[in-house]
């Protein structure tokens, strides 16, 4: 039997934009098995990002339930959610979102520091993972001194380094050219296979959808199609 790492039940979410109510999610039920490499696709406004945010505990829902590794997200406090994100969930964003005043190595170390891992081990692991993502000579560069692709590699390293159960990636390749995007995706795929980390993407990118082992297609806040 395959264990599910994420289960959503009939999740609904409404945004109030001024006087207009936008129904971002209209009842999404989804099960994601451990070790998946899954893409959420769909047009703008279909609810991909909202769903990722709710799974990651960044945003609340109006109805339904979400569990991550059997934790009921809806019932957890802000600080419990923070702890869950810190230890079990990694994030990768479209705009990289590294801490601008920290170097590549420090950005990666930052998460482990929050986890309370001792200094020497942090350094070793940060350098190892930066080597793995192909940034051997760039430990001390600040984000402003790195290209977009390099920044996103740091972001992947940051998401992976804490050994999370699941990595949520919101349009990770959208700001990259196709060659850079492809190599980054290859990197994530390798991480998925080597380390058994579950990856969930939201994407527009055809190439990402092709590489995904499972593709969930959202439209108007509902799941339209779910293909393995």
């Amino acid at each position: 039997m395959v264990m599910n790492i994420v289960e959503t039940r009939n999740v609904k979410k409404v945004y109030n934009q001024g006087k207009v109510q936008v129904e971002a999610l209209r009842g999404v039920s989804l099960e994601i098995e451990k070790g998946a490499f899954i893409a959420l696709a769909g047009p703008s406004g279909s609810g991909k990002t909202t769903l990722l945010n709710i799974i990651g505990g960044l945003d609340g829902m109006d109805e339904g339930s979400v569990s991550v590794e059997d934790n009921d997200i809806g019932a957890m406090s802000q600080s419990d959610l923070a702890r869950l994100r810190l230890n079990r969930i990694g994030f990768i964003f479209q705009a990289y979102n590294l801490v601008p005043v920290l170097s590549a190595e420090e950005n990666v170390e930052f998460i482990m520091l929050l986890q309370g891992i001792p200094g020497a081990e942090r350094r070793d692991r940060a350098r190892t993972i930066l080597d793995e993502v192909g940034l051997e000579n760039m430990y001390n560069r600040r984000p402003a001194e790195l290209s977009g692709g390099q920044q996103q590699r740091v972001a992947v390293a940051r998401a992976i380094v804490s050994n999370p159960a699941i990595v949520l990636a919101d349009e990770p390749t959208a700001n990259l050219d196709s060659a850079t995007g492809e190599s980054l995706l290859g990197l994530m795929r390798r991480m998925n296979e080597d380390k058994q980390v579950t990856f969930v993407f939201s994407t527009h990118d055809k190439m990402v959808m092709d590489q995904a082992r499972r593709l969930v297609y959202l439209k108007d806040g509902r799941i339209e199609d779910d293909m393995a």
Partner: protein
Amino acid sequence: MGIDLKIAWRNIWRNRRRSILTILAIAFACLLLVFMLSFQLGSYADMIRFSLRIHTGHLQIKADGYQKDKDIRKVVSDPGAVAEILQAQPGVADYTFRANAFSLLSSHDRTYGVMVSGIDPQREARVTTIKHVIRQGAYLSGGDNNEAIIGNLLAENLKVGAGDEMVLLGQARDGSVAASMLTVTGIFSSGQTDMDRSVALITLDTFDRLYFMRGAVHEVVAVCPALGDVKPAQAAVQKALDGLKTRRHLRVWNWQELIPGLLQGIKIDFFSGIIFYMIMVIVVAFSILNTFLMAVFERTREFGVLLALGVTHGRLTRLLLLESSFLCAVGMVAGITGGALITLYFQQNGIHISGASEILKSYGLPEVLRPRLSWVTIISGPAVVFAVTFLTALYPALRARKLKPAAAMHAA
């Protein structure tokens, strides 16, 4: 904690101009407070010392009722017994005796009513500074010699100088007439208008004979090693005096009771200073509040990411407060250093306010003012600045607690 410090420190220098302006504002407030408090407290110390050491002393022992109406019959009849008490008191550094009588003093063509005081020249010189403010002629020598020293304003009024003779006319303790010829041996200038205009000093021995005092005096004036010793010494001496068997009960007065205006005047000046400083600090606080606000608003997205990574709201608040504290600390160090240097410069060289010496004199201040740097003046002003700055930074830092990660990340 190491990385928080690093992040905070680097964030400050992300926006160099803004941080420098903020640091300058804090430094300015600290500098001004260090200097002004040193200046004020220094002046107060001078004012107290100047006022007390010239004549009043720290403590005076008088017979009941004498403080109010200076009746020549209300005497301390056994000064020796009081001296023994004072001698045994570690809180009393030294003491002297005085007797006073309001009398007429006439020169060749002028007559003025003055306070004639008999002093013990040697003892007086150890307790007050009168010996050092003789401007013409000499200080009193000891013994019964019909010598007098008078204030410079009185000398002008009487049109006499050192060596001239005057006639004294008064009423002795027993009601008889006290009259004598006195020789002006010296003219003093204390800087205190009242004293320079209306006091004549003769030796205690002369006074005793002229006013028929039979060994009694009116006041025993004592000084303490430091101002802080005054209150305990007063209590101890009073207790000892209460045990003394004299015809009139004796009471110890401290300098605040003797010159009530002095401490109150200082209080008025000090409190009005505090009002001015508080307003300044509040203006500075609002002046720099925008820096802290902006530090939160323009980095909403960044904070969203940190929250997504699992940083707690509490830690975010701490990070922001750390940034503000850094800014403040740099400003404080700069301000304290600048303020201390300026203060030390003027402490060495003094401050001359041109044309104000008459006013200063009327306040009981010397002509050259000197600020005095101390731990109190270095710490207290900047501490208030730090507290207020911290409170100012608290508002935006607490606002960061309300950030919702998803919304924050998508903020512009």
